[in-house]
């Protein structure tokens, strides 16, 4: 049976993680607990990082927003400092019970293609700070995910901070964002597809749009071809139709027990139109 270690500081956690051979960080445990108990994941030691104060909280500092990875999904969902897409993504995860325990860092490091905070982090310019006992690196969110459940984290490394650039510019323009998801039902449902978008929105025109889709490829992905279609153009019915079709063609959905490829290509277009409506504050785009 695994040993259970509760470190008192981040430095101590990193030291233990560097020394122990088969030591796994444990945050809320909503993913890991079942895997350890049924033997899918083997660990000699569980390192409970969930109460380390260095890893909890949301702050505005040095021109960016910094999120501790052990901040719970409930706290991410209700933080007024965070952009709409990330709050919405967190608020759609599981149930109140899952959100009270589960953390944003766990959602990221779990690296499920359908993780609901991942597509928001991709469109919000998220960056991840990874630290080990011997050093630190910072990488863009896109570079972190290698495949389902696979990340660039190496042994001994922890995700220690998530940062987002502050997007308020002096001219009062604010980068807006939105998130949409569809699953089998409202709550307690794993996304069949999720989608996040962010852009500057002024006088009917989107600027610097970023679009990302989850559950439509082995990792959450940006869709640059659609971003190029939207850039600087008047957002009318024709443009939306053109962009939706391109989006359906660009995704590389898997066909699994939760949904077929054809369904995912069709539903992603509806999510896209809903997300645009939410971003621009319109009722709906048909």
């Amino acid at each position, binding site marked *: 049976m695994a040993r259970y270690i509760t470190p008192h500081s981040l430095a101590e956690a990193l030291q233990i993680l560097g020394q122990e051979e088969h030591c796994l960080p444990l945050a809320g445990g909503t993913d890991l607990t079942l895997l350890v108990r049924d033997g899918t994941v083997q660990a000699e030691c569980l390192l409970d990082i969930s*109460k380390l104060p260095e890893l909890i909280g949301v702050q505005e500092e040095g021109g960016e927003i910094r999120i501790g990875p052990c901040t719970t999904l409930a706290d991410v969902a209700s933080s007024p400092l965070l952009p709409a897409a990330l709050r919405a993504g967190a608020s759609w995860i599981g149930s*109140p019970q899952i959100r009270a325990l589960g953390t944003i860092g766990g959602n990221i490091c779990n690296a499920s293609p359908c993780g609901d905070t991942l597509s928001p982090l991709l469109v919000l310019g998220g960056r991840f700070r990874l630290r080990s006992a011997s050093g630190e690196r910072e990488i863009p969110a896109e570079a972190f995910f290698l495949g389902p459940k696979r990340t660039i984290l190496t042994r001994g490394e922890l995700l220690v901070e998530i940062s987002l650039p502050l997007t308020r510019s002096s001219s009062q323009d604010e980068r807006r964002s939105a998130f949409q998801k569809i699953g089998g039902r409202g*709550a307690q449902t794993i996304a069949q597809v999720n989608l996040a978008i962010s852009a500057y929105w002024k006088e009917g025109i989107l600027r610097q749009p970023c679009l990302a889709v989850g559950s439509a490829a082995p990792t959450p992905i940006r869709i640059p071809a659609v971003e190029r279609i939207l850039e600087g153009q008047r957002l009318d019915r024709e443009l939306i139709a053109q962009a939706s079709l391109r989006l359906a063609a660009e995704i590389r959905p898997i066909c699994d027990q939760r949904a077929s490829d054809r369904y995912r290509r069709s539903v992603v277009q509806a999510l896209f139109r809903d997300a645009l409506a939410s971003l621009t504050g319109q009722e709906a785009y048909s």
Partner: protein
Amino acid sequence: MKAVPISFCLNGHPVSTSIDSDLRAIDLLREGFGLTGVKEGCGRGECGACTILLDGRPVNACLLLAAKLDGCEVLTIEGLASADGTLHPLQSAFLEVGAVQCGFCTPGMILAAKSLLDTCPDPSEEEIAYALSGNFCRCTGYSKIIKAVRLAAQEKMR
């Protein structure tokens, strides 16, 4: 060898024990402390029957390692009524409205609802439905449960 020593506050009383690192909170509470109001439905975080309040927040005891209880305040349904047996307004409202059929989901429902009323004393129906979205009931169809939570909120505010 029980490797992990833990101390926490259980239904208002301090307790200390030693546990295996892979023991779940649901097993410790049911088998170690005899608190069988913590129900096991799915065992995978989906149904909410095992809901307890951890530092006031609803969590699934089936997904929670018991080691994580260390230093926390834990409330199960057994700790909700006052020491003299007076029912909590939510318990009375569930009885009055008839929001209980087989009763299997009821402890989890009531604790999830308590956590809502503690932070939002006058919730709308939508807010109640959202707060209870992690609790499944196979019997009642939810409308009486939502009605009971509204009634309890009104009683509490009086």
